[in-house]
């Protein structure tokens, strides 16, 4: 705990002392104020863009919402600035909900383009509305005050600004290091894996979008009381671009990268504005030219920004050891029906245009049973998995889990019923540790929300989740790799990590898509032993696998698909001698 807070505490002390250094130029304090204001916006962008993978060029507009809210209320209605703070944040957050609902479901590049469009649109709107003072804006905004003490000069507003920055950094770091944080961090790698473990990805995206907007709104509120005026210029599209630039320069994946980026960019901008015209003569946007070129150069030379480069200079800290033991998470309340049918697939059909990928396939998985789904490449095995887990909607047919129909249900509902899966193409977050990746599997077994996480009220819940994750990692035999980044493991090991993640769901039915691919002989034997042990523990397994030796020794029953159609079903002994199966695998002549 202390080792985590110590650097932040030291930073806070340094920042608190700076204004009292004798002879410090007032201009530097103004610069620091501006850095603090930009840091707040950039920190929101770090979570949104760097961590969550959602790009916004429109953050400046959210600053505008915060600034104009307090400007109007404190000048026209005489409301105290402290009372307008929650309202400013609320207005910015509400604007984010509206814009977010419009654009959050869009993939990839539509979102940044949408943000450019609304950034421009809102900028013009601010400049046209009568009650916002049109292009002249609103002046005469009262300063912040505590009792009779008015924060009129840059040296006093310095404190609220930097207190806000440090609090925001703490809250952001807490958020990232939590159940909700893992869900947000999983967003960048696509939504299928996260949804398979119950993450409501649309809600997680909206959440981080609102968080970023609220931070921008806070910056705008402070800005309005710092400048004591608000006009459209600082909330225009170019500033929106600059905030993103700041986040990229600092290191978009790191909370403190936002602060570092703000410091570097604002100081650089100041230096360029004062020295470039003298150096090159002429006037105008010379710093914009240098900025633009630097941005392009930075993307080519150091795409991850300056913060990771800076921290790599520091001695590496020892990685965290196994999480402290905690109370076990409660197990699944419903027990599997003994000898009952766990999963029933009836005439499931999937067509992609004219191609029938899965053609009226029916089979079932009983409890305490290992069933293998085999067939040549392109037989429709993975598509069947996707139909069962709700990743793809079936064209026709029924899938029921423990008697409950899941046809057309989203993946989040299927996993709630106790069906966990792995993926043929590994879907782990490579820059999260093995432990964090596996803990994502236990997402539905925790309950702490974003606010609790920010305030660290989630620790008891979080300790249970991490302890469970650690237990499952040790169960699959990767205890030594627990704190390594998932991306640094071999592909075979990553598949095993996926199994541990699926086990964290506390599933009744485990769906494994080619779990043995990339494993060595000994590892395959260990995997088989693990799966048998799970079966003895009451779990069922449905697996797709190409290694026939592995399948034949392990499975209780085998279902064979060929060109989307079920051609055989039976015990390994029956399948080995089935003429249709031999024909499908070896051709007609055999």
């Amino acid at each position, binding site marked *: 705990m202390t080792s985590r807070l110590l650097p932040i505490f030291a930073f806070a002390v340094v920042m608190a002392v700076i204004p009292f250094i004798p002879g410090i130029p007032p201009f530097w304090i103004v610069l620091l104020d501006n850095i603090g204001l930009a840091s707040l916006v950039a920190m929101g962008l770090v979570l949104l*863009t760097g961590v969550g*993978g959602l*790009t916004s*060029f429109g953050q400046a507009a959210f600053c505008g919402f915060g600034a104009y809210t307090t400007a109007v209320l404190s000048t026209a209605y005489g409301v105290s600035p402290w009372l307008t703070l929650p309202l400013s944040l609320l207005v910015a957050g509400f604007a984010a909900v509206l*814009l977010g609902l*419009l*654009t959050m*479901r*869009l*993939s*990839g*590049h*539509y979102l*940044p*383009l*949408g943000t*450019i*469009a*609304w950034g*421009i*649109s809102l900028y*013009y*709107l601010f400049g*046209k509305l009568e009650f916002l003072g049109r292009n002249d804006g609103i002046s005469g905004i009262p300063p912040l005050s505590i009792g009779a003490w008015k924060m009129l000069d840059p040296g006093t507003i310095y404190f609220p600004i930097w207190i806000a920055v440090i609090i925001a950094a703490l809250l952001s770091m807490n958020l990232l290091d939590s159940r909700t944080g893992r869900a947000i961090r999983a967003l*960048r*790698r*696509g*939504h*299928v894996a996260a949804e398979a473990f119950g993450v409501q990805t649309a809600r997680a995206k909206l959440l981080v979008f609102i968080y970023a907007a609220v931070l921008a709104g806070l910056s705008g509120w402070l800005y309005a009381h710092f400048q004591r005026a608000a006009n459209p210029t600082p909330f225009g599209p170019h500033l929106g*671009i600059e905030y*993103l*630039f700041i986040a*990229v320069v600092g290191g978009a994946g790191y909370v403190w990268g936002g602060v570092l980026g703000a410091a570097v960019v604002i100081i650089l901008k100041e230096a360029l504005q004062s020295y470039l015209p003298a150096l090159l003569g*002429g006037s*105008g*946007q*010379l*710093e*914009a*030219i*240098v*900025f*633009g*070129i*630097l*941005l*392009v150069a930075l*993307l*080519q030379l150091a*795409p991850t920004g300056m913060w990771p480069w800076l921290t790599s200079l520091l001695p590496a800290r020892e990685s965290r050891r196994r999480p402290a033991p905690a109370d076990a998470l409660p197990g699944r309340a419903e027990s599997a029906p003994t000898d009952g049918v766990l999963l029933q697939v009836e005439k499931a059909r999937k067509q992609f245009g004219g191609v029938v990928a899965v053609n009226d396939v029916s089979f079932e998985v009983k409890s305490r049973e290992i069933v293998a789904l085999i067939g040549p490449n392109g037989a429709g095995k993975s598509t069947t998995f996707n139909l069962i887990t709700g990743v793809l909607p079936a064209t026709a047919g029924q899938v029921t889990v423990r008697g409950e129909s899941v046809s057309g249900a989203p993946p989040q509902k299927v996993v709630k019923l106790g069906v966990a899966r792995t993926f043929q*193409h590994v879907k782990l977050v490579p820059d999260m540790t093995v432990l964090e990746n596996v803990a994502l599997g236990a997402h539905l077994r925790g309950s702490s929300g974003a606010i609790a996480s920010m305030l660290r009220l989630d620790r008891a819940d979080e300790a249970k989740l991490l302890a469970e994750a650690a237990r499952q990692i040790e169960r699959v035999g990767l205890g030594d790799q627990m704190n390594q980044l998932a991306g640094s493991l071999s592909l075979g090991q990553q598949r095993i990590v996926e199994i541990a993640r699926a086990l964290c769901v506390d599933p009744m039915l485990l769906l494994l898509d080619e779990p043995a691919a990339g494993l060595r002989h000994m590892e395959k034997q260990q995997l088989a032993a693990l799966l048998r042990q799970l079966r003895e523990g009451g779990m069922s397994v449905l697996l797709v696998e190409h290694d026939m030796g592995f399948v034949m020794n392990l499975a209780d029953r085998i279902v064979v698909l060929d060109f989307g159609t079920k051609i055989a079903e039976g015990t390994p002994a029956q399948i080995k001698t089935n003429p249709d199966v031999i024909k499908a695998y070896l051709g007609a002549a055999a």
Partner: protein
Amino acid sequence: MGERPALNTTILLFLLQDGITNGAIYALLGLALVLVFAVTRVILIPQGEFITFGALTYASLSAGQMPGTIKLAVAMGVVAFAFDLFTFRRALQAKRVLRSVAVNIVFPLAIWGIMLALAGKPSSIPVNIALSLLIVAAIGLYLYRIAYQPIAHTSVLVLLIASVGCHLALQGFGLVFFGAEGQRGPAISTDAITIGALRFTGQSIAVYGITIALIVGLWLFFGYTLYGKALRATAVNRLGARLVGIRTTLSGQLAFLLASVIGAISGILIVPITTLYYDTGFLIGLKGFVAAIIGGLVSYPLTAAAAILVGCVEAFSSFYASNYKEVIVFTLILPVLLLRSLAAPEVEEEKD
């Protein structure tokens, strides 16, 4: 503000004509944006600067001045040549180096030479247009080589941020070269015909004609030529395209060459109609974007239709609520995005 006249047929037709003329320009830009995105996955924010550079280079040449853009083209050519040399450093084959010298050094210097030779003589409109197009084409080509080619394999997002950087730098250069005052250029044709209440200037007819010609040209190019098909293949799968022998860097350069020429043509078409400033291109380009987004960044005909719609919405909102013209045009994108998100749920992208 005076009393607004009631909307009658004459005004309606006039607004429509205005909207379609502007819409045709947006269509050209939208097409170029779709083209570049489809081939390189770059969202071409600096398209606006191609417009400005084309228009103001043409206007400067017509006014007998030497535009600064040629110096930029020469300088960028030198940098692009340096990038080429760095890439070739392990295998400096004479043929590749000579080709690079020809494209990056000789080509812009030749344009400069012609401009110097013609300086002082009375200029002709076709020569000025040709020179402007060549300069902007060179800038577009080198821009791809310098800014995008080294990061061509990265995500759409990184490319987009790079685009923003290019936009900032080029717009800054625009201010240095052309100053903060607006310019107008001479019309391509001063003839006009009158049909009923409407007067069609030669300029607006040129706008329609060139737009239609370019749309048909692009359609033929992508549908029926080997190069066009190679570009499309690159768009679908870079690695696959390389494996069948398509030079993906060449595809990117070609796309940028086309886009910059289209941008410059648009600029030259509008500069006789409206006064252009160094930063006007950005806004005009973004309106092309609105059209391209409505077209889903993939469909040429849909983009063209959307562009006409954007032009008309702009014309009518400038009549009804001129203060909110930009607000309305850029807000147009939000319902479109909403419809898209409802119609086609997000598909999983395999990242990295």
